[in-house]
């Protein structure tokens, strides 16, 4: 009994070792058993996001329905299970039976490659995600988080491919918006990744997790905030959802897709959302670390997925409760607020982290709290300068009013929060 428990406590590593032993007994050479185990491992890694999103799609629909005072999927049909838990399965089967429609004039080869490419890009991130202490990771690359950043730019190509090859105005508008949004939000994203990397001294995801005796959200809340917003734009969720603004341009870049090709985009979108949660949890929430992980390593995967799920829930709340920002507002939020803030935060944090030992702070908690103070100071400075800019613009526009009537000079951060035209929400 105890043996079984011990086996289960580090299931994936032990099962791998056991399988390797069996292969050895069956006379398989070491190299071939390695290949078989690698294939099995990668299938498990791919299975994680696919099983997770079947649950997450249901959660999203339920949460958004509750926000909009509806019940959501609820006993629709005879076999959808309790609380319509298997609604997603029914939807998947329905979508599989639908016809592929290729528009006349579409660029056929690229049109068909785009859905495959978007799924590939969404799944490639999961290779470097550490699910547990050791052995529970696809590959502990020394460039870990840099690999994630490089891969996330591939999502952009699937958007361009889909948008351009569809030969549809809505699709190409969506692709344009998606490209400009993702390209510009990549800058604050990378700048927000740098502080945790700097404190760790390594790009490897496993090292970043191991360095977080105190989760980085405590010592680096401002970079965490910037990263959250940037990643929100990267995955195109409300309020930064312009690539597929379905109240204006049908479904954006995948307007023309139908059947399972549409399904591929839909799945990739949810996989990306969850992957964003996983990356955020790894960088700032301590990854797989949690109570009892030392005794039961398998719990690591549970803690990681739980944290990622909480981040995903934040995305869901945004989705249900936020208006859609206009594309120029989104871009000015990035270039006029997030990029300067990230550019200031990075050197300030680097300098103060270097200075801490000289003023006698050496304990991890002391360091974390001092950095928290620095973060709060930077945030307060940002808030003060925003109000100053707001006052300045107001004074300028008042002066302009005296000479000739002109409503406002430029969209500023204060205007970003409410946009009357876009208050109408989608009701999916």
């Amino acid at each position, binding site marked *: 009994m105890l043996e079984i428990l011990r086996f289960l406590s580090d299931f994936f590593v032990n099962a791998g070792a056991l399988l390797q032993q069996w292969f050895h007994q069956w006379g398989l050479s070491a190299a071939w058993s390695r290949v078989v185990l690698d294939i099995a491992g990668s299938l498990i890694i791919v299975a994680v996001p696919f099983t997770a999103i079947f649950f997450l799609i249901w959660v999203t629909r339920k949460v958004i329905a509750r926000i909009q005072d509806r019940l959501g999927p609820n006993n629709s049909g005879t076999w959808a299970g309790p609380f319509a838990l298997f609604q997603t399965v029914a939807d998947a089967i329905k979508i599989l039976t639908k016809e592929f429609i290729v528009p006349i*004039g579409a*660029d056929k*080869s*690229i049109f068909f490659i785009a859905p495959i490419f978007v799924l590939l890009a969404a799944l490639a991130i999961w290779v470097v995600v550490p699910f547990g202490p050791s052995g529970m990771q696809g590959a502990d*690359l*020394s*460039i870990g988080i*840099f*690999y994630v*950043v*490089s*891969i996330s*730019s*591939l999502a*952009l*190509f699937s958007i*361009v*491919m889909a948008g*351009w090859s569809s*030969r549809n105005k809505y699709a*190409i508008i969506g*692709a*344009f918006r998606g*490209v400009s949004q993702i*390209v510009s939000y*990549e800058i604050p994203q990378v700048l927000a990744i740098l502080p945790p990397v700097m404190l760790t001294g*390594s*790009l490897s995801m496993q090292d970043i997790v191991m360095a977080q005796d105190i989760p980085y959200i405590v010592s680096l809340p401002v970079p965490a905030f910037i990263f959250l917003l940037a990643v929100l734009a990267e995955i195109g969720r409300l309020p930064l959802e312009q690539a597929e603004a379905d109240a204006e341009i049908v479904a954006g870049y995948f307007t023309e897709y139908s059947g399972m090709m549409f399904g591929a985009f839909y799945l990739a979108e949810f996989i990306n959302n969850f992957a964003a949660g996983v990356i955020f949890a790894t960088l700032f929430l301590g990854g797989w670390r949690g109570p009892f992980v030392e005794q039961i390593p398998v719990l690591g995967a549970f803690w990681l997925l739980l944290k990622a799920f909480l981040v995903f829930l934040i995305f869901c709340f945004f989705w249900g409760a936020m208006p859609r920002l206009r594309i120029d507002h989104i871009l000015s939020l990035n270039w006029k607020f997030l990029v300067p803030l990230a550019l200031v935060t990075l050197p300030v944090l680097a300098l103060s982290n270097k200075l801490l030992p000289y003023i006698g702070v050496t304990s991890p908690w002391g360091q974390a709290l001092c950095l928290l103070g620095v973060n709060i100071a930077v945030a307060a400075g940002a808030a003060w300068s925003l109000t100053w800019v707001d006052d300045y613009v107001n004074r300028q526009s008042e002066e302009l009013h005296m000479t000739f009537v002109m409503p406002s000079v430029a969209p500023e951060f204060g205007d970003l929060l409410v946009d009357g035209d876009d208050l109408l929400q989608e009701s999916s």
Partner: protein
Amino acid sequence: MFTVPRLLFLCFAFIALGSAVRMVVAHQVFHAAFWLILSFFGIAALYVMLEAPFMTGLQLFLYIGGVAVLNIMAIMVTRQMMHPRRTANDPLTAALMAFSTFSFILWMILQLPFPNEPQVPAPVGNLPVIGELLVDVNGYALPFELVSLLLFVVLLSVLYLAKER
């Protein structure tokens, strides 16, 4: 003769070169851009085989995430991209230009001495080594800072050019 790494190398080299040729002969500029991306992928795979993960990341990030994206954005704002057949206005001059550029670059590459051994022996985790060499005074600190300066100047001039007047 045909070990697995060698076969993989041939495969990736074929992808890189083959898609480069397809890029040149593609009828549509947009297709050419995607063949170029595939060629970049082939080269990234070659870096993986050389056990240079950082170079792989750079190849993905700079060439695919930067250069190729710029290409595609430029193509997307160009008019009449859907017309497949296009001929150069002056094919002879174009061919001459292409040939002379190619031979100049080839000549430059052949001028470089190819080292038989790595100039800096790389340990297993080679990322800190690259970082230290880049900011070391005896290493590449000066070129590194010059490149940063150049990029800064480029940024400023782009801002100046894009300013509404």
